[in-house]
């Protein structure tokens, strides 16, 4: 193993450690939601608020963006800069669509008087889903930056290392969303 490869491995491992601590943070917000999800304080409950078909669409969009991120990484592996940029752009558009849908859902809830100040349930809901949305926003910014870097410098070894970290980040957010989808939306609307 040469020196660059060894350095890349150490950096990837460091980023993986960050992702795992981020996962611990998410699990704290998840626990908060699990403890408080019935504390509606006379306000609307999860069964009154959530629309499953809408959330299913969000989930499928995020899953597809995770897949297109994988396709971008395949393009990076075979040194095709143009198709890497194209797949990154598709991933970014899907991620932006997801974030827009989530923001419109939040806006709708707040408009209907179900904002984060209404009850402990809604505070924990906004904290959990909002934290995920914030991560997605950071991911989008990162995708835009990476597209600019590829367009300017091509696929250098350091660029492809950064792209590996970005792909880990995207797949990680997708995994967190599976649990939000299951725990908040599916369980919240079941009878």
């Amino acid at each position, binding site marked *: *193993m040469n020196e660059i*490869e060894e350095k*890349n*491995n150490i950096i*990837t*491992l460091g980023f*993986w*450690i960050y992702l*795992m*601590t981020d*996962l*611990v943070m998410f*699990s*704290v917000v*998840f*626990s*908060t939601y*699990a*403890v408080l999800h019935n504390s509606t304080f006379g306000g609307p409950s999860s069964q009154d608020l959530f629309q*499953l078909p809408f959330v*299913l669409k969000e*989930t*499928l969009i995020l*899953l*597809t963006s*995770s*897949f297109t991120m*994988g*396709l971008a*990484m*395949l393009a990076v*592996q075979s040194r095709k800069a143009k198709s890497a940029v194209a797949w990154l752009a598709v991933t970014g558009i899907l991620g932006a669509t997801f974030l827009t849908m989530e923001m419109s859902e939040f806006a709708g809830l707040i408009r209907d008087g179900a904002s984060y100040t209404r009850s402990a349930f809604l505070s924990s809901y906004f904290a959990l889903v909002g934290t995920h949305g914030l991560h997605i926003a950071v991911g989008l910014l990162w995708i835009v930056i990476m597209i600019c870097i590829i367009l300017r410098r091509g696929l250098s070894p350091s660029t492809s290392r950064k792209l*590996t970290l970005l792909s*880990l980040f995207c*797949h*990680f957010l*997708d*995994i967190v969303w*599976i*649990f939000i*989808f*299951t*725990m908040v939306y*599916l*369980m919240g*609307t*079941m*009878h």
Partner: protein
Amino acid sequence: MDKPHITLTSYVSGFILSVSLTFFAYWAATSPSFESKSALGIIIVLAFLQLVAQLVFFLHLGKESKPRLGLFIFGTAVIGISILVFGSLWIMNHLNYRMSPADMNSFIVKNEGISQ
């Protein structure tokens, strides 16, 4: 944690598996043919199956060369998270039970067969 050689097959199978698991979970949660307890069990199992599918096919966990530090760190995080999540739920449920208002107290008295 080194970068394994990634393949299209891995991503395609991960994607197909994830989408079908998502649809299955959605169907199990909305279909009236399940009782709520069994539907709950099904969707939890499906979520964990999808977790494994994405870890293997998207994040390529465990495909690195030895020593598998990435897998080790993941395992440590999972242990920490389990203690945190189940511990919180356990403690908070107990607190609800012990520090409950008057009408709950009468329920507990009846429930535990204690006569007042």
